[in-house]
């Protein structure tokens, strides 16, 4: 079946603009994660959705970052008033339930100019 998909694959935006990144998890997966991977760095956890529970937002770096997950499926990560340090690859992952191995999407490469 289809894997995790993310759109757009690449996004270039000007400093100060808002951006929305989309993640379509694997059908039926209840858990969804967002990570950020800066150039040459490891993965930084951002936010985690599990079913209908309140999300774990502990990794969001500032209040400019927010995410929602509608209908328990598609998720959107929104970055307001983008800064150059937001430039990174944003990865989404999903799992069938809590704690299993994660299936990753190809990522969205965000460049803030």
């Amino acid at each position, binding site marked *: 079946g289809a894997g*995790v998909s993310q759109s757009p694959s690449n996004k270039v935006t000007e400093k100060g603009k808002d951006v929305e990144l989309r993640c379509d998890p694997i059908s039926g997966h209840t858990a969804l*994660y967002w*990570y950020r991977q800066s150039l040459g*760095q*490891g*993965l930084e*956890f951002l936010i*985690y959705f*599990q079913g209908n*529970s309140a999300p*774990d937002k502990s990794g969001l770096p500032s209040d400019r970052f927010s995410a929602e997950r509608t209908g328990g499926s598609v998720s959107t990560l929104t970055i307001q008033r983008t800064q150059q340090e937001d430039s990174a690859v944003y*990865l989404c*992952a999903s799992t069938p339930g*809590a*704690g299993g*191995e*994660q*299936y*990753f*999407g*190809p*990522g969205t490469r965000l460049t803030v100019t």
Partner: protein
Amino acid sequence: AQSVAQPEDQVNVAEGNPLTVKCTYSVSGNPYLFWYVQYPNRGLQFLLKYITGDNLVKGSYGFEAEFNKSQTSFHLKKPSALVSDSALYFCAVREGSAGFQKLVFGTGTRLLVSP
């Protein structure tokens, strides 16, 4: 908090030689450990995991990992490296309570296999 460390930024090995990518962990309780691989311009792919049981875990693409509790290590190994194994490898540990868990990743190790 749970954490993993990957002490090597890069590992170089010749094709056909055995390879080892190191990972050590720091956890409270029983560790749930994972290895992922990232090929250029791709997302991460799951290789293998240790939950419980045999200390030697076999995974995808001929990779295996050895869980060593006394050394708190979970090194990734392959008996004979391929050029196509060149990629970025991440070790990870599961953190959180039942029903609400996430992975904490190491900083990654770049594997370069030369022909």
